[in-house]
């Protein structure tokens, strides 16, 4: 859509124009947010909602179809699928949030510094280029299978390949933001470097980081599932959507519900996070469209 010439666009224009589509535009994030809230609530209340202990095996009740006792049926160990999916939400969400938090916590300072110091930048970026060149999934499989599949290694394995992306994002924002006149003004005003970073550059990275964060979160949950699928995931003792599906995968043709339900929930959850991310991007900063889609 062609934006109107700035000379002609009335000041109130774009904001007003957005107003008309308000309900439509807001519907998606509200819906997505609502679904996410439901999933989070289900995860938190798993203890109360789950009809069974997710670890309790009933070897005589293996691979049963849905029944009153087992609303979604049972898995290959005779464990209740519904309970496992509810508890699994905890782990999957934890992986998503955990990876996002660690990635940002590591990537933000590195990116800020790389954006401001040329020498650090050239060294750091070579390392980041190297890490980006390694296919992330292979790297994650290698890390998990080589150092043992605890939830922490899985977190690390998913985090490590994501970090360079965040560093690059933050760095590119800093690089362009530091050319902004208001940063030059701050320099002229004698502001110290930490102050400029904190006050003038970091806030610029906030909106893109929130947006990118949602994508990282979504992709972390997805990656956890794929790692489980490849046999490099979290232990079956700690149910996650990923390993429920990975275990159910063998029975896809006789008991598709083992993949269907966790898969559906996973997809809906990721879909919601992605939709939320898209909406946040539109709300927070329309200029980000490009970067957001580039991940």
């Amino acid at each position: 859509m062609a934006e109107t010439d700035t000379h002609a666009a009335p000041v109130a224009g774009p904001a007003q124009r957005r107003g008309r589509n308000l309900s439509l535009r807001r519907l998606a994030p509200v819906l997505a947010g609502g679904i996410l809230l439901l999933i989070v609530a289900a995860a938190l209340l798993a203890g109360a909602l789950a009809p069974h202990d997710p670890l309790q095996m009933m070897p005589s009740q293996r691979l049963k179809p849905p029944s009153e006792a087992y609303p979604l049926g049972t898995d290959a160990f005779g464990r209740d699928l519904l309970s496992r999916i509810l508890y699994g939400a905890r782990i999957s969400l934890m992986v998503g949030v955990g990876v996002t938090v660690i990635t940002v916590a590591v990537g933000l300072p590195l990116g800020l510094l790389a954006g401001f110091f040329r020498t650090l930048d050239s060294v750091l970026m070579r390392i980041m280029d190297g890490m980006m060149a390694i296919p992330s999934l292979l790297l994650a499989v290698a890390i998990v299978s080589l150092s043992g599949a605890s939830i922490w290694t899985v977190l690390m394995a998913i985090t490590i390949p994501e970090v360079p992306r965040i560093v690059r994002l933050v760095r590119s924002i800093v690089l362009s933001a530091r050319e902004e006149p208001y940063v030059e003004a701050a320099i002229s005003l004698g502001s110290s470097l930490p102050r400029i970073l904190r006050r003038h550059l970091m806030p610029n990275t906030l909106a893109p980081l929130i947006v990118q964060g949602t994508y990282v979160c979504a992709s972390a949950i997805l990656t956890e599932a794929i790692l489980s699928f490849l046999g490099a995931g979290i232990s079956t003792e700690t149910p996650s959507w990923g390993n429920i599906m990975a275990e159910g995968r063998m029975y896809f043709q006789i008991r598709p519900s083992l993949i269907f339900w966790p898969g559906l929930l996973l997809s809906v959850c990721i879909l919601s996070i992605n939709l939320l991310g898209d909406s946040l991007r539109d709300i927070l900063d329309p200029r980000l469209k490009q970067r957001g889609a580039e991940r």
Partner: protein
Amino acid sequence: MSAPILSVRDLVVGIGPDAASPIVLDGVSLDIAAGETLCLVGESGSGKSVTSLAVMGLLPRGALVARSGRVLLEGEDLLAADRRRLRALRASRMAMIFQEPMTALNPVMPVGRQIDEVLRAHTSLTPAERRRRVLSMLEQVHLPDVARVFASYPHQLSGGQRQRIMIAMALILEPKLLIADEPTTALDVTTQKEILRLVHELQEKQGTSVLFITHDMGVVAEIADRVCVMHQGTVVETDTVDAILRAPRKDYTRRLLSAVPSLTPRAPRPVASAEIVLETVELGKVYARRRFLRRAEETVAAEAVSFALRRGRTLGIVGESGSGKSTVARCVMRLVDPTAGAIRVKGRDISSLSRSALQPHRKRIQMVFQDPYRSLNPRVTVGESIAEGPTNYGVPRDAAFARARSLLEIVGLPPDAITRYPHQFSGGQRQRIAIARALAMEPDVLVADEAVSALDVSVQAQVLALLDDIQERLGVSLLFITHDLRVAAQICDDIAVMQKGRIVEYGAASEVLTAPRQAYTRQLLDAAPGRDWDFARFMPREPAAPAAAPVADVAKPSGGH
């Protein structure tokens, strides 16, 4: 008047199709006769561009909608025409050229093909015939070496050449109506003059009617037959150019004209102090692009720039784009590091001080940037912005805020502005905030880099008055960077004219602007549109003192790079 080529009647354009949403154009009516030039003037948001886009049927889809009225091109209502018909009319009956010749041409297609596309879309000529016609059109717009230009990409041409391509593209099918939307605003004055002349020449030749949209009264005075003044989506008044310039009937028009600065320099001011607060000596800046296995490619941005600024005075640096004037300003601020020469602030050379050693000197010299929309951090309140500098130098937060409040008052903003954010202010107000922020440091020198260029004339006049006032009250010195000779005439005591990185002429404003010694300065003055009018007085300007006899260029660049 004979039947008009274009007749706009009661045109109403609103945001979206929804009748309840706001209106951008409210009942605009205008007529253009055959061969006539109608200038549509107005400030930002007056609706002049929307009017032109509505005529072309190029309103952004879904966003702006023509709700009522008629647009008659030779009697045919364009608002009622379907897409196919509109497409057929474009370029063949009505054509348009835009403000930014760089962005208006497709950067990835040779310009010849872009013109050729018009012929392909609207004629059934053979490729050879089309090529011949394009080449001949390129000649008509006075482009050199047309075969080469034909195969060139836009980035390989200069701004003026690109605008010529746009004109060739618009006029190759000899349309009845040419709409020119600020076609010279992005160009230097000398180029602007050539383009205006070209448009006029082709208009004469083809008998085209021109709807010329501009905010520049100088241009109006140069080219208009009739003038239509717009304000907030309505037509204020329409009349012949003479009538508008000499005897505007409406207050708005009168105010608009009064705000146009005169080319006649202000009366010289007595020198209050002999203290030199800022001085550059043989300042130079060379950008070296490192290249692999090859000698670095060097670009000289400024060379041997020397000037001195006394306390309480205003020095203007004028020049066209690329003349190096902004580089000088940024060197002086140490936002870029000069590669040669000295910068003395109150006698102390700061050109090679380290970051920390520079710290105490930073506050002596402050800057106001061109773009008021980008020079204030959108996430920081006005008060925080203004107080940031003083707190950096140890002023307690409370005191800094108190000072911010009083400064806001000085720059004419309400005290409650302190807790608000920049986006709540207009461009002119933001520029006032930026000035307040600079003043909070109690600097000796204020560097204003094109500080009023992005503002409408009426706002521009207010900001200039403010700067003047501040100088009066605080005795601060101003280094005023501008491309606009009119603005320079109104605020500067001294003027340095820059060209290709060097100062070619440097002297008192009254002398430089009335009796230029250098050919280049004269060329600039000659090219200033509407130089013969004193708009604020609604009369032609008294002829300037006869230019001094041409003398040899004194400061010819001495070879070098």
